[in-house]
C-alpha cells in the first residue's frame, strides 16, 4: 500500500501537485511511481524560465532499469527545479512528496482542477491497475 497524502492533486501519469500559497504549483512523482521505477540514478531537469504545455514532457527520471518522462500536468513556466536531485536522485525514493519534489511551475491562468485527480480518484486508479 503506497502513501497518498490527502492535500494533494494527482494525475494518471502518477504525478502529484501541491498548490503553494504564492500561486505556484510544486510537482513530483507519487510513492507508487517511485516504487515501480526502483532506485533512481539520474534526474534530468528542465531549465528555470522554460515554458511547458500540459501533457508535454518536462523532466526525465531514470533508474537502472527504466527512464520515464515526467509530464507537465498544467500549462506554465518553470520557476524552480530541485537542484539537489542532480547529486542525490534517491531523494525521490526516500521522500517522494517532500525532499523529492521535482519542479515548481507558475501556472498560466487558472488551473482546471477537473482535469486532475483527487486522492480518492487516484486511489481508484491504483486499485484498478493492481486488479
Amino acid at each position, binding site marked *: 500500500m503506497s502513501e497518498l497524502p490527502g492535500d494533494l492533486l494527482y494525475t494518471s501519469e502518477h504525478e502529484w501537485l501541491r498548490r503553494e500559497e504564492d500561486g505556484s504549483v510544486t510537482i513530483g512523482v507519487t510513492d507508487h511511481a517511485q516504487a515501480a521505477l526502483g532506485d533512481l*540514478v*539520474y534526474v*534530468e531537469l*528542465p*531549465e528555470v524560465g*522554460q515554458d511547458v504545455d500540459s501533457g508535454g514532457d518536462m523532466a526525465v527520471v*531514470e*533508474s*537502472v*532499469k*527504466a*527512464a520515464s*518522462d515526467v509530464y507537465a500536468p498544467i500549462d506554465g513556466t518553470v520557476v524552480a527545479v530541485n537542484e539537489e536531485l542532480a547529486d542525490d536522485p534517491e531523494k525521490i525514493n526516500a521522500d517522494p512528496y517532500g525532499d523529492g519534489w521535482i519542479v515548481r511551475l507558475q501556472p498560466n491562468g487558472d488551473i482546471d482542477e477537473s482535469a486532475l485527480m483527487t486522492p480518492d480518484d487516484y486511489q481508484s486508479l491504483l486499485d484498478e491497475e493492481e486488479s
Partner: protein
Amino acid sequence: MPFIPHTEDDTKEMLKAIGAPDLDALFDEIPADLIIDSLDGVPDALSEMEITRLMRGRAAQDGAPLCFIGAGAYEHHIPQAVWDIATRGEYYSAYTPYQAEASQGTLQTIYEYQTMITELTGLDVSNASLYDGASALAEAALMAVRGNRNNKSGRILLAPGVNPTYEKVALAIAGSQGLSFDRMPMDAVTGNAVTPVNDSEAPVAVVIQQPSFYGTLEDADRLTNWAHEQGARVIAVVNPTSLALLKAPGHWGDEGADIAIGEGQPLGVPLSSGGPYFGFMTCKQKQVRQMPGRIVGRTTDLNGEPGFTLTLQAREQHIRRSKATSNICTNQGLMVTAATIYMALLGFEGLRQVAIRSHQMTQRLLAGLTAIDGVDRLFDGPYFHEVAVRLDRPVAAVLDALAAQNILGGYDLSEASPELGNALLVCATETKTDADIDAYVDALKSVLTK
C-alpha cells in the same frame, strides 16, 4: 540456408492457434498504401550459387591498382596479425552477444576499445561504436539537440569542410526528426570556415571536420570558442590517424569539443569497396546520458573480482522504445575488434609514425603534381595526408585515363562541389613509396600533355 527454423507445419499450427488465415494477415494493421511489393534497384533474391558467381565476378574487377583516393576512406597497411586474431572463433561475431555479461572477453575488448578512442579524442566517454562515420554525425546532431534544450531551432551549422556524404546521410536520418543542416561560408583562399556567420537564429550545434574533407586544417580552437559563444554545442568530425599528430578535439579552444565522431576505417579495416566500416563517438561526461549506443563499464562482481558490464542501458530502445536515444544502437563488433587489435599492435608511437609517414608522402605527391603544367594547388595552408589540386581540364576523363594505367588518381570533387571547378582530391598514405609517387606523377604528366 534458411534462417527461419519453423517447418511449414509449425507455421500452420501457430496460425491456427491464433486464428489467422495466413502470414499476411499478421500484417493487416499496416495500411495497404504503405506496403510495397518491390524496391527500385533492389533485385529479386538470388540462390547461393548465383550470388557466389556474382560476387566472384565483382571481386575479380578489383585487381590491385595504385590507389590515391581518400575522401573519407583511407588505405593503410594492416599488420597480418590484426585479422588473424580478429577472425578467431572467440571474436568472429559481428554482434554484441545477448546476455552480454556472459561474454566477458567480448566486453573487455569493447572496454579496451573505448579507452583507446577516448585517449585519441581527449574526451571522457566512448560508446561501443556506431555503423560508420556518416551515421555517427546524424547521431551526434540528434544528441546535441537533446542535450542543448535551450535552443529549440534544431539547426545544425556545418563547416564548409564537412564531408558532403555525411551531410546527406545525416539529413536522411535526422531531417525527418526536425533537424536542418546549413553550411558556413568558405574562405576561397584557405578553404576553411568563415566566421562570424550572419544568422538570425543561433545554431544548436556547430560541426567542425578536422582535417576538412578538402584536406585542409581548420582553426579548430577559434571555431570551437566561436561556437560556444553562440551557445552551440561543438561536434568534431575527426580522422583517427590524424589524432596522433593533431590536437585532440577534447582540447580544442577553451572548453574542448563536446562530442567527437568519425570514421574508424583507417584503424585496421580494409577499404573493401566501401564497407563494412565503423563509426566512433566520444563525448564529455556531462553528455553521457544523451549518448546513443552501448557503453561497456568496468565494475566488481559479488566476490570483489573485476568484471565488465553493459551500462547506462535505461535509454536504449529495448527499454525506452520510441523515446530511446537512438533506434540504431547496434555496434560494429568485428570492426571494433580489428581496430582495437590494430591500435594495440601499433601503440601510440606506431600510429604517430603512420601519420608522419602519410603526411610526408602527401607532401612529396603534392610537390610532384604541382610541378606539372596544368596542375595547381587549390587551397593554401597546412594539410595532413590529403590535398586538393586544380586541373586545367575536366577531372573525370583524366581519372579514366589514369585508371587505364591501373592508377586510381584521386577523388573528383567537381560533382559534389562544382563551385571549385576542375578540382581533384588526392591522398598518399604510408603505403606509398617514392616509386609509386613517381609512377603517378609520370602518368598524369603524360595524360595532361596529350
